[in-house]
């Protein structure tokens, strides 16, 4: 489950700021700069970390959600975008261009990578980390999020209880025609809404009783930015800055239309790829190293 992945991952044990900086970079760079090498590195690291985090269950998800999306993305562009100089063939009088096909493939890898990074994010990031980051910026909204996350499992369980209670006094809830089922769902929801609203009064009493609403509320968190975090942040930012410089100086660049041109084969460009790879592989490397060290220490 997700909780166990979050507990298991060493990277998840770093300060939330580190986590967010990493994911921000990992998601934005491929979207903004669709350089094939950057995309390939990104996708490969996302995929391997994802499989590592989720053990066996990862592949099924990958095939189930990511692949279809990637196929759509790969087909969408050549089919509807006819830019590009190199015409491969005509389909229904529309030119299919090489550039568009390449763009489609790159877009597919980009989308696949982004979805996989998000999947890793979902496995590793808990609400605590989000609350830590936004609890100071938007305290009321993050409290609402925390409360909603507390209510949701309760409400789901309650929906089940209401359904069986209604069944218990002879109302059929789960069979019959479609509209009848929708209607009985409405009855269940209606009971749930009243129950939730009336019980929420005690929740707000409990908040006010513990001083909510006094001025000068602070935001506590269990996270401490320690020396390990500081070292990691410095290293990460340095690598990211190197990649950014290379991109800004167009040492590494890509152009799809009208002609597909890539740059980055210079030594400086290679160094930028290396830096990008170094960033992307951080979480996986940390987790694997920890596993190895742990196993060694057992022997």
């Amino acid at each position, binding site marked *: 489950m997700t909780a166990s992945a979050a507990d298991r991952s060493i990277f998840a044990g770093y300060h939330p700021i580190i986590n967010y900086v990493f994911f921000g970079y990992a*998601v*934005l760079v491929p*979207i*903004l700069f669709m350089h094939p090498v950057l995309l390939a590195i990104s996708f490969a690291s996302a995929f391997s970390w994802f499989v590592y985090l989720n053990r066996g269950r990862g592949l099924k998800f990958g095939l189930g959600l990511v692949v279809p999306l990637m196929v*759509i*993305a790969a087909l*969408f*562009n050549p089919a*509807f*975008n006819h*830019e590009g100089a190199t015409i491969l063939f005509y389909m229904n009088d529309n030119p299919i261009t090489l550039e*568009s096909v390449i763009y489609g493939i790159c*877009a597919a890898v980009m989308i696949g990578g982004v*979805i996989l990074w*998000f*999947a890793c*994010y*979902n496995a590793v990031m808990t609400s605590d980390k*989000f609350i830590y980051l936004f609890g100071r910026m*938007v305290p*009321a*909204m993050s*409290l*609402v*999020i925390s*409360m*909603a*996350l507390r*209510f*949701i499992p309760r*409400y*789901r369980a309650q*929906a*089940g209880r*209401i*359904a069986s209670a209604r069944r218990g006094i002879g109302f059929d809830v*789960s*069979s019959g025609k*479609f509209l009848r*089922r*929708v209607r*009985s*769902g*409405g009855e*269940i*929801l*209606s009971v*749930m*809404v*009243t129950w*939730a*609203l*009336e019980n*929420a009064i005690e929740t*707000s009493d409990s*908040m*006010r009783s513990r001083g909510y*609403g006094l001025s000068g509320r602070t935001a506590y968190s269990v996270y401490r930015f320690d020396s390990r975090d500081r070292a990691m942040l410095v290293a990460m930012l340095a690598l990211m800055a190197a990649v950014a410089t290379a991109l800004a100086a167009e040492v590494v660049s890509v152009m*799809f*239309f009208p002609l597909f041109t890539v740059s980055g084969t210079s030594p400086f460009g290679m160094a930028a790829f290396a830096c990008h790879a170094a960033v992307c592989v951080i979480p996986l490397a940390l987790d694997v190293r920890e596993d190895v060290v742990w196993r060694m220490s057992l022997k």
Partner: protein
Amino acid sequence: MTSGAPRTRRGFDLRFPKTVLVAVVVILCIPAAIAVNVLAFDGRAYYVTALAIITLSMLPFAVAFEGRKPQARELVVIAVLVAITVAGRAAFFMVPQFKPVVALVIISGAALGPMSGFVVGSLSGFVSNFIFGQGPWTPWQMFAFGMIGFIAGLVFSRMAAAIGSGDAPVHARGGNASEKADTDSVFAQPDGTAVWGWDVKGRLRTERIRIALLCVFGFVITFVLYGILLDTAAATIFSSSISFDTLLLMYISGAPFNLVHAISTVVFLLLLARTMIEKLERVKKKYGFMQGVS
């Protein structure tokens, strides 16, 4: 029990200078984002630019909401509605393809006003993705649901107060102290109207018109705002260039899904709107929730 309670202001409050400031900054930032896109990315960073724009346009709402220091009761009601919107699917386990999210956001906006409507909507989008998995679609859903709640609040808050307070049948509202004492009179309606919930015809008609309006609104806004916005978002991430043709194609291919979504919203509004608005109005009145909230 007539609707004699003091009417609270429901408009989007701009009293806070901070909100105005943020709004101005946002208005300046949006062209800046587009400029960056054109200059630095040859106008091709559609997704990120669009993302920046919608994120920026959510900022003033966030600042306004935080700025008025919402009290415990208001926060709890908003959190309850967010949770119900997300967990509501559990109540419809027997029809899994129908999701009541948009309908519940519209009802929340109508009952609580535009500001709370926006917050309920956008946080529902966020929290549901917290549970079902965040993705590149999260900000778009937040924005779409938020705007739906906001607009529903602007258009319907007055009407919701009418549905919830004055016009419902006596027994269905819980009655007041004197009615409670005399239960026989509840039974003893000559035509059984009070017992059976049939109401005076005129009232019923106005109420039906109100619900019908809400449904039309729900259909249009689900199809147009939610459907079109999310299809556009998909186009920005899939396509190398945004043209009228690619967008049109996206909209056409998305139309069947959006149509089902819009219809299910109407079904849910028909089913839930009246009772939910009544319940929310009851809680607002009974416990002084959202009093003095604008």
